[in-house]
């Protein structure tokens, strides 16, 4: 029972926070709600015994990405932004699509009876080695190719930032 309550709390709070993030008039307030949102998502990771991911979630998203968001937002003139409408005319359509998906998912998920077989990394297996070691081993053996491609993707992102932002050529 306790796990269900725990999960229900986080699911509801995460949904509410997401809505708060997109409805705030002041972008800085949006970012603050997003910070709280990230912390809750990290808690969900802990709930799944993925404490390493939880820490990374906070360090990377809250500690780096969101700070950069704040940095950019603070340099903008918010006065004009605050007066503008947050939603354009299509938002009822979005709500409709969202509702459709929710109903669809609830209907289908309740019907699923066959589940794929579980992988080798059960909770016991992860706890016996620690989540950092488990993730490290998997990343550097089975997933070495995606891992290395991801490094090139990040390199390209850095090149892009430098190319597009550096001072005028010549």
């Amino acid at each position, binding site marked *: 029972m306790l796990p269900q309550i725990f999960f229900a709390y986080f699911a509801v709070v995460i949904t509410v926070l997401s809505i708060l993030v997109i409805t705030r008039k*002041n972008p800085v307030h949006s970012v*603050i709600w997003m*910070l709280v949102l990230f912390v809750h998502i990290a808690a969900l990771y802990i709930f799944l015994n993925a404490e390493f991911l939880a*820490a990374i979630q906070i*360090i990377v998203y809250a*500690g780096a990405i969101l*700070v950069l968001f704040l*940095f950019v937002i*603070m340099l903008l003139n918010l006065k004009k932004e605050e007066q503008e409408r947050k939603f354009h005319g299509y938002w009822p359509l979005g709500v409709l699509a969202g509702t459709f998906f929710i109903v669809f998912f609830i209907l289908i998920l309740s019907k699923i009876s066959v589940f794929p077989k579980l992988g080798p990394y059960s909770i016991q297996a992860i706890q016996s080695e*620690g989540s950092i070691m488990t993730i490290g081993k998997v990343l550097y053996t089975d997933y070495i190719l995606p891992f290395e491609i991801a490094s090139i993707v990040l390199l390209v992102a850095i090149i892009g930032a430098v190319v597009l932002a550096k001072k005028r050529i010549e």
Partner: protein
Amino acid sequence: MDIPDIAITLLKVVITVNVVLLHVAYAVWCERKVIGHMQARLGPMVVGPHGLLQPIADFVKLFFKEDVIPTNADKPVFFIAPVIGVIAALSSLAVIPLWENFSIANLNIGILYILALSSVGAYGIILAGWASNSKYAFLGGLRSSAQVISYEIAMGLSLVGVMMLAGSANLSDIVNAQAKYPFILVQPIAFFVFLMSVIAETNRPPFDLPEAEAELVAGYFSEYSGMRFGLFFMAEYAAMFVMSAMVVVCFLGGWNGPEFWIFSHVPKIVWFLLKVYGLMFLYFWLRATLPRYRYDQLMGIGWKIFIPLALANIVITGIIKLL
């Protein structure tokens, strides 16, 4: 977890937080004394013998002072900003092993937990700067966000070497791995980079650009007064304490002390605290002697010296470990 466990944990929390807060209060006094003597002054002398009661007087003063809020400030954010800083700093204490088998939570991701919280702590500063609606505070906040992001990378990378040697990110395991010799002997580069990054991360001199009084009045907390100002002070000194403890745990052997003659009978916590005090003294010493860095120099050494050094350290450690 049943009831007695929870009660014991709560007791641990209360004890640790109280002890640390007391340390924070006296760290301020200590800093004033140390700097005073270094500058051939006496420091606080009036309240109590040698000003020993000064922190208490300060606390009472701050507590009863009027809480001024600037007219155009963003009130909710203005209120929560200092709280974020204090909570982040005090929560970090949870994983620090003060002596053998004593830490509130013995997490397997201890190092990452500390890094995560220190990055959350930066929000207190940034949001305070923004919410005050004042240009000095704002510039302080911006400087701080850039500085903290930059130095967090160097900080995290320099700890990778330690994690590699200890084979764990659990702080107790790391201390146990240093039973024979402290990691400072085998990781001198990482120690240096980490120490410098810690000073930058806690916004202490000579890297205290966010609160450079000559340029920015008091930086991000220019507009704060009363107890909220006190909270910032508390957050800063608590963060100093936590970070010093991290240096001790990761590089100086934690609670381990010399194991011969009379020394082996000294309680472990004494060794731990002695090392922490030594580092705190280093903080004060640096503040009293070094001039402040220029902002671009600060970012320059962060990105161009510390991060490459930390990366090189990882490579070297890896190679040596392989051989």
